[in-house]
């Protein structure tokens, strides 16, 4: 009976895969000639940046990016509120691992530099706030694993401020441009480049902090937490 079930589900999966592949093939053959690349190239000069991906993400479709950051902020806040460890700085974590310590001394400055480069590169080549934020968060994870003290990640005003900073600045710019007569999220002409760089900088900080908070919020040492709640 169980074998039959497995066989049936396998067959269903295979059929679905074949159907999907056929659909992709058909879609690829009858591709509608899109004018989006031409439109993008034509209006790239007005966007304030030189890289088309950044222009789409931070200027032409910045509404999507704004909502994405909102989703990330909510995810980070829910992660923090689920944290079961009160003291986010675990003394058991302060490892005396010599190798990890030596690695950190080399890697942490290098990764911070890489994050800054990715942020700066976003205006004219692949890179940008999301990638820089992820590298920033990875630096934080490395510091966390090595037990380096990170006061800013403790639950408090600083952490909350860091989490919402990117979203708040983005929203502020959007509302300000709406009040100034332009459309919601339409940057005033001439200021687009500077505004995008400012938004990307705060976004990088916030994204890095949100991702790091999600990692730090997870209870670290299992020996620690069940005993707090009592029981066996």
């Amino acid at each position: 009976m169980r074998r039959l079930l497995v066989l049936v589900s396998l067959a269903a999966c295979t059929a679905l895969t074949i159907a999907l592949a056929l659909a992709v093939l058909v879609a690829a053959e009858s591709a509608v000639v899109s004018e989006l690349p031409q439109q993008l190239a034509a209006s790239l000069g007005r966007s304030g940046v030189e890289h088309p991906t950044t222009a789409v993400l931070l200027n032409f479709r910045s509404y999507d990016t704004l909502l994405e950051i909102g989703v990330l902020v909510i995810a980070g806040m829910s992660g923090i509120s689920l944290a079961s460890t009160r003291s986010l700085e675990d003394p058991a974590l302060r490892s005396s691992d010599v190798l990890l310590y030596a690695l950190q001394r080399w890697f942490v400055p290098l990764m911070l530099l890489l994050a800054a480069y990715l942020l700066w590169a976003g205006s004219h080549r692949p890179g940008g706030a999301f990638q820089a934020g992820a590298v920033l968060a990875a630096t934080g994870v490395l510091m966390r694993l090595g037990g380096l003290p990170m006061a800013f990640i403790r639950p408090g005003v600083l952490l909350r401020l860091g989490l919402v900073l990117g979203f708040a600045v983005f929203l502020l710019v959007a509302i300000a441009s709406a009040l100034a007569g332009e459309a919601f999220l339409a940057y005033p002409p001439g200021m687009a480049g500077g505004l995008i760089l400012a938004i990307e900088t705060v976004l990088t900080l916030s994204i890095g902090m949100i991702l790091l908070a999600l990692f730090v919020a997870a209870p670290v040492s299992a020996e620690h937490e069940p005993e707090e709640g009592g029981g066996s």
Partner: protein
Amino acid sequence: MSWLLDGLLIVSLLVTAVAVLLSRDLFRAVVMFMAFGLLMALAWVRLQAPDIALAEAAIGAGLTGVLLLDAVSHFQRGRLREQPPGEEG
């Protein structure tokens, strides 16, 4: 020459994906997932989407992998505690 690289990439993507799904050892599944993420980043590079490749390598393979490893270590510690001592060894 490039079709060889692409073909190899597709085959290894499929193999790692199946390995993630079928592996009974959670730790091995996570390691396979990270390998899958890195190969996926290569695939994005081949599709001329370096932005997505960067994001995939940093978030998909790196941070998600770390989070999953953390979760696996919690599962295993929890399982060890549930069993009475002596049964495990």
